Each structure stands twice: as C-alpha cells, then as structure tokens.
C-alpha cells in the first residue's frame, strides 16, 4: 500500500520536486523487507506486481519495469547470502547496492531498446545519491513495516 501510494505520488508530486534522475526506490526497500519477513515468494510477487503497475502508468513497454524489479529482487536474494539483511548495516549496504545496480540495468535495457541516454558524470552522481539515500531510509522503513505488521497481527489475533 505504501509503495502504491508512493508510485502514484511520484507521478503527480515527487517527480516535480526532486531532480530528474534522483529516485528514492521504495519498491526495493519494501521488497527487501518482505524478503526478510515473508520469504522469497512474497517478495518476488510484490516486486513483479509493483513493476507491472509502474508499466501501466508509464509510457515504457509493458513488462519493462516488471523485469527490472524482478532482476532487483534476484540481486537482493543473492546479496542476502553475503550481507545480513536483518541488520541495519546489511540493509543499508545491500539495498543501496541493489538500487545502484537497478539504475545501471535500467540504462542498459534502455540502450537495448534503442533509447538515447546521455551518459554523464551527473547521471552517475544521481544514481549514487539515489542508492545512498534509499539505503539510508531502508532500515527505518523496514522497522516501521515491522511495527505495523506486529500491531495489525496483534489486532487480528485479538479479533479472532
């Protein structure tokens, strides 16, 4: 839900306020969080679904961002073998790294589809900034989601 709202906000407010290539990627943050708590299947479905939603709203090819986020999920899954996703440092490093890789893969895919992308130092600077700040907020978002999950879980148990 948080990710959905963020995607819709990106199409109306966020992109007007932030630099063009600066992208705090909440989809990857939430995918990482789901990977810790719900396992691979839930995280993969979420990543694919959010990618499809972005495809529906954007002028890109259908499946483009779905593919991109599935690749990001695979990177998270592989990275989780080397970094502890449950720890703050692990989340910061791995999420940041995956966001940076995602941006590079995005540029590569755009090139494959004959899109003209001007590769410049500033572009890579914004990629790095996006990776850094997304990594920075990842533990925070993860802990918020954990709290929400515990509370809603508690409430549903009480209701039962």
């Amino acid at each position, binding site marked *: 839900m948080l990710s959905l709202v963020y995607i*819709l906000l990106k199409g109306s407010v966020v992109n007007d306020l932030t630099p063009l290539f600066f*992208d705090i990627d909440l989809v990857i943050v939430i995918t990482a969080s789901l990977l810790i708590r719900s396992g691979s299947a839930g995280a993969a479905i979420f990543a694919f679904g959010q990618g499809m939603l972005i495809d*529906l*709203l*954007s*002028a890109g090819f259908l499946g483009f961002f779905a593919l991109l986020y599935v690749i990001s999920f695979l990177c998270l899954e592989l990275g989780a073998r080397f970094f502890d996703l449950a720890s703050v440092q692990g989340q910061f490093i791995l999420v940041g790294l995956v966001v940076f890789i995602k941006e590079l893969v995005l540029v590569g895919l755009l090139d494959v589809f004959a899109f003209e992308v001007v590769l410049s130092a500033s572009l890579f600077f914004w990629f790095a900034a996006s990776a850094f700040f997304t990594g920075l907020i990842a533990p925070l978002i993860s802990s918020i989601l954990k709290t929400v999950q515990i509370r809603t879980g508690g409430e549903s148990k009480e209701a039962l």
Partner: protein
Amino acid sequence: MNPLKQIRAYWIWVIFVFVALVLISFNAGKRRSWTPVEQVVIELTAPVQKFIRKSSETVEKAWLKYFSFVDLREENTRLEKERDDLRMQNDLYRELASTHARLRELLQVKESLRSPMAAAQVIGRDPTGWFEAILIDKGTHAGLRLNMPVVDARGVIGRVVAVSPNYSKVLLIIDQNSAVDCLIQRTREKGILKGLPSQRTRLHYVSRAADVAVGDKIVTSGLDRIYPKGLPVGEVTEIVDTPWEFFKDVRVKPSADFSKLEEVLVLLKEDPLSSPSQRTK
C-alpha cells in the same frame, strides 16, 4: 436659633438679591469686559481650572487607551484573520483567472479546428522519469479511442496510447517512442519529429539540401493519419549540418510547455491505425 440672627440672615439674603437685581438691571442689554477686579479673580482661578481640566483629560485618555489596548488585541486578531481570508480569496481568484484564460485559449483552438473534441484534465505523469506520458481524466465513456491526437492551446501534445472507461494514457511527442510526421511551415520540407532526453525533440530525415533556418515553425503534415494537417508542433532552435551525414540534425523546441500541462483537448476522430473491422466495432 436666635431671632436677631434670623433677622440678620434674612436681611443679608435680601441685600444680596437686591444687589444682584441692580447688577442685572444695570448690565442688561450691555456687553462689557471684565473689570480689573474680575480680571484678577479670573487670572487666579483659571490656572486651577486649566489644571483640573488637563488632569481630567489625561485620566480620561488613559482610561480610553487602556480599553482600546484591550480591544486592539481582538481587533488585531480579527484583522489578521481577515487578511488571511482575503489572501486566500485572492489566490483563488488568481487561480480561477488563470484557469479561465487557459480554457478560453483551448476554446479558441476548439473553434478553429472545427472537429469534435473532449476536454480533459491532466491527473498524473509518468512515474519513472525516463518516459514521457500523462494520464488524463477521460476515457472510452467520453468517446476516447486509441491514437486520438491530443492538443492544447499552443500545439500538439501527443496521442492516446491506452484507454480505460474513465482514464487514458497519452504518449507525449517529447517521448523517444513518439514519432510525428511534420512539415517546415515556410519551405514545406518534411521530417519526422521524435523525442530526445530532457524534453527536447529532433526533426529527423531533413535532407542536407533542405532549406531550413533557426526560427522556422514546424507543423504537422497529416501524413501519419493521426494528427490533422497544420497543427503547430514547435520551432527550430538549432541546426547541425555535418558534411558526412545524409541528413541535417534539426533540433526543435516544442510549442507546448510540457512541464505545465493542466488541461488538454482530445480530437475525437477514428483510429486511423485500426483495421476497418475494428472501427465498425
């Protein structure tokens, strides 16, 4: 009381009345100034009267000031609120005036094109930042179909690429997936306008022999069967003529301001790219 004293008091009263009557009788109908004695009396008493008067005025002023200070705070709060309300109203009126101006421009376009149209509001933009598309609040219920051209008061915006009952996605002409068959208005040279990164466009396939200059207006040719002929698209801003290239590199600044899109017009014409069987459906 002693009767003698009573008589004396009586006589004193009579004398004073008599004197007063005499004075009245002598001075009735006459205007005279103070006598020297009267003047002395006045000179002595007037400063005291003045002091009393001033003192009472000061007290009165201080009293009124105190009350006005009490009222002032309330008045200030009321005026601040009134000012905020007026500011808000002013902003609202400005916004309404701006919307009115934009809609009037759109209406002029609608009248000049003489084609059925649907006005729509822009409700969102491409969330990725890499592609250029907008979402509008009209869909098939308003008669929108695929590949319908979208314009605003300044010129061509794009075409409808996806529709739902109440919403549509419009691919902007500044997107790299977009292509618009165009003419250079002055010389009638042809070219295909495609998007470039950062909201710029390039007119492709303009031969090196073509007569094109900076400032030339670009309009739609109508050959792509999507956009009607003669719609303004943009203006040439830069021409690079490289000797070993077949074509000139012509950069075009779009007429429309894509960063400020709010209302657009969709030209309700049949999808020229669909098959006849699809059209009858």
